[in-house]
């Protein structure tokens, strides 16, 4: 046996959740960005109103990113989230659905959006787990197909929601915080619990870290992979409901390029693209970094193009940092 010294578990280390200590650098980066915002835009940036603007901007893509975080942690990727979101809003706002969903039963629309999202996810999962198609291709196929289906159903029209109860629900701001921000907080909180405290989370990490070892430990990995993509689909469904609440409309262009924003947020947040290690807390910060940045650019009247260049630079920087840390660990 090698002469390794027995190291007693340090009690102090356990107090602070590892997700916080590991994300310390990320939190600092976020605070620096906020500081830049405050310096350049002053109180316009620092106001409560603006804070709510940032959170509202972050909420929808944030919910999708939570689902994406699970999929990426398992070593997969879900490219279909953006166009599936659009499809879910279109399906939920078709004339037939709206006809049956009246003031009291507008939950039907919510139900349809969630079912469409989950069904898409299950399809992805089956293609990946049982069809043995690499996640990139399986979900890319759905990205393309869902987009087409949404355009077909909506006939390229924007479908306006005329269900009064629905509008009312999304127009109240409990405690001064918009409903969609509340939903984001709930999803993030539930995601954190699911990731860090449940068997589901453990198995996800196991599959991403070593699929074969996890399978040989007696875990039904194929079934779990289907559930992972279904979970991502569920977050897409929730995000679709939020999108309908914010815009009072369903259209195939909803959620356009959300897959890119979500993946960027997850990876910048510190989740490894190769799987095995992820962080919900980091994902939330990752989303906030991007939306805050967008907000700062808007506050300073800078063009969208500059903003996108900055986003690109941040993604490259974050991935370089990740690789550096990973290398240092293995060295």
């Amino acid at each position, binding site marked *: 046996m090698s002469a390794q010294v027995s190291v007693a578990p340090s009690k102090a280390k356990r107090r602070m959740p590892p997700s916080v200590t590991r994300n310390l650098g990320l939190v600092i980066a976020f605070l620096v960005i906020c500081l830049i915002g405050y310096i350049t835009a002053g109180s316009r940036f620092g106001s409560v109103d603006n804070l709510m603007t940032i959170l509202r901007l972050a909420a929808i893509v944030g919910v999708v990113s939570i689902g994406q975080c699970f999929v990426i942690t398992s070593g997969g990727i879900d490219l279909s989230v953006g166009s599936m979101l659009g499809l879910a809003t279109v399906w939920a706002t078709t004339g037939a659905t709206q006809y049956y969903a009246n003031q009291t039963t507008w939950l039907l629309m919510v139900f349809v959006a969630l079912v469409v999202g989950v069904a898409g996810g299950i399809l992805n999962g089956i293609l990946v787990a049982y069809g043995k198609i690499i996640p990139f291709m399986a979900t890319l196929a759905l990205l393309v197909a869902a987009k087409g289906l949404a355009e077909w159903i909506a006939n390229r029209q924007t479908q306006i929601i005329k269900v009064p109860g629905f509008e009312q629900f999304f127009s109240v701001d409990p405690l001064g915080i918009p409903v969609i921000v509340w939903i984001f907080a709930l999803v993030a909180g539930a995601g954190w619990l699911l990731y860090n405290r449940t*068997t589901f989370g453990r198995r996800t990490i196991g599959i991403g870290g070593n699929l074969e070892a996890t399978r040989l430990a007696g875990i039904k990995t194929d079934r779990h992979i289907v559930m992972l993509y279904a979970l991502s689909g569920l977050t897409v469904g929730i995000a679709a409901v939020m999108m309908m609440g914010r815009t009072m409309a369903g259209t195939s262009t909803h959620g356009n390029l959300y897959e890119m924003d979500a993946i960027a947020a997850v990876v910048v947040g510190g989740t490894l693209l190769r799987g095995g290690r992820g962080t919900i807390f980091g994902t939330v910060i990752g989303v906030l970094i991007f939306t805050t940045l967008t907000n700062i650019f808007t506050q300073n009247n800078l063009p969208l193009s500059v903003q996108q260049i900055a986003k690109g630079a941040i993604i490259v920087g974050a991935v370089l940092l990740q690789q550096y840390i990973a290398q240092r660990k293995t060295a």
Partner: protein
Amino acid sequence: MVTDDHQGAPLLTASGVVKHFPGAKALDGVDLDVYPGEVHCLLGQNGAGKSTLIKVLAGAHKPDAGVITWQGQEVSFATPVAALRAGIATMYQELDVVDGLTVAENIFLGNEVSVAGFTQRSAVHARTREMLKRLGHSNISPTTEVEQLSAAGKQVVSMARALSHDAKLIIMDEPSAVLDSEEVANLFRVVKDLAANGIAVIYISHRLEEIRQIGDRLTVLKDGKTVASGLRVSETPTSQVIALMTGHEGTLEFPPRTSAAFGETVLSVRDLALDGVFSDVSFDVRAGEIVGLAGLVGSGRSEIIETIYGARRATSGQVLVSGKPVAKGNVAAAVAQGMGFCPEERKTQGLLMEESVGRNITLSIYTRLARFGFVDDVAELAVAREQVAKLGIVPSDPEREARTLSGGNQQKILLGRWLAHGTKVLFLDEPTRGVDVGARAEAYQLIRDLAASGVALVVVSSELEEVLGLADQVLVIAEGRVVHVAKAADINEHQILDLIVEGTPA
């Protein structure tokens, strides 16, 4: 072809080569000398260090100690390219050809003949044709995409690439593994041709009969050491080669058997078969009993336990645990019925290397540790601590990452996983692979203790001494069949060797 004494200086010598990896010593003093124009066979069981040695020779790994000389000069190749430039070409088992490129493009990959960035297709094709002809394969066109070639064809391309670099030594890692018998004959013709032209070949294979057909001399590796170097193939009987590969000559110590009676039959295997790998495998294991499978690599011994465990789907036959049939090809069902498996490849099949020791131990029992899906962290840590203490895992911190532990302690993590699960039948594939010889006694004691506690065990090992020392009952496996069953006390290493040699066409 075999000259009685090799005139002149050796082409390559390696002496005292040592290579460590975190937690394991892959090479621990290897000596090898290769002369121009000879076919030198490198033998050893899985994990003996063959792959590491060829990677060191090919410049892919840097040795920690030892001297390598090439054409009389001491060398240290920093990269595979440097080794290739010097004249050492390696054909890895996973053929390193690019499917999407043509034969010619593959052969000259990284070595393109170009003028101002434009590849000179006609010149390249001419040279390719010339090389393919030299290898006796003028039927392959330089413009064929490699994807369309058979495994044998790809191998020829790989060899042509070696020739294009004017290689003086070609290392072939199990080249025959992917070929059928006709293709093997062709391969041998090419190898003999290369040797006749003064090119040295290091030939690695598990098939002993091939060594006899093609080899001039042989070197045997075991546990990262050379146990025999440069033996003449014509003067070394097959049984001696197997003995060198498997024997420990009484250097291992085993805890004494307790005379406790075995319990009821826990595992029954009935007429199990996997097409093309093994057939007609039947045996029983009782509670507290250790059954050992003895056989060479490729005999089907690992596949047999993987199939019982459900990691592979049996073609026919049945597996019963405590009399109840187990669903085929379903690991989760096998585990639920009380089976556990410590695989040969801990890193790729056993552990989550970047997760903590504790979570690796509890991987199979998350569900049991959870209420409504929420894992009870306190209970989880308690289970982990219990197993860490019981098995003497060092360091004794269940929150350490698994990859930081030594091979022996990583093996204990796996044992702990199944102990925590309360496994009734445990399969151990090469339980002491990568475990320091000094730490083995402890591993053996643990395995015995497990049996004494009523677990039924099935042990596979490349080392006959280990099988004999641990097992109560021994099944000798050759060519996918159980050729003999005996009590460990009634059979010795030499008898097993004879049975293996008999059962293996040589």
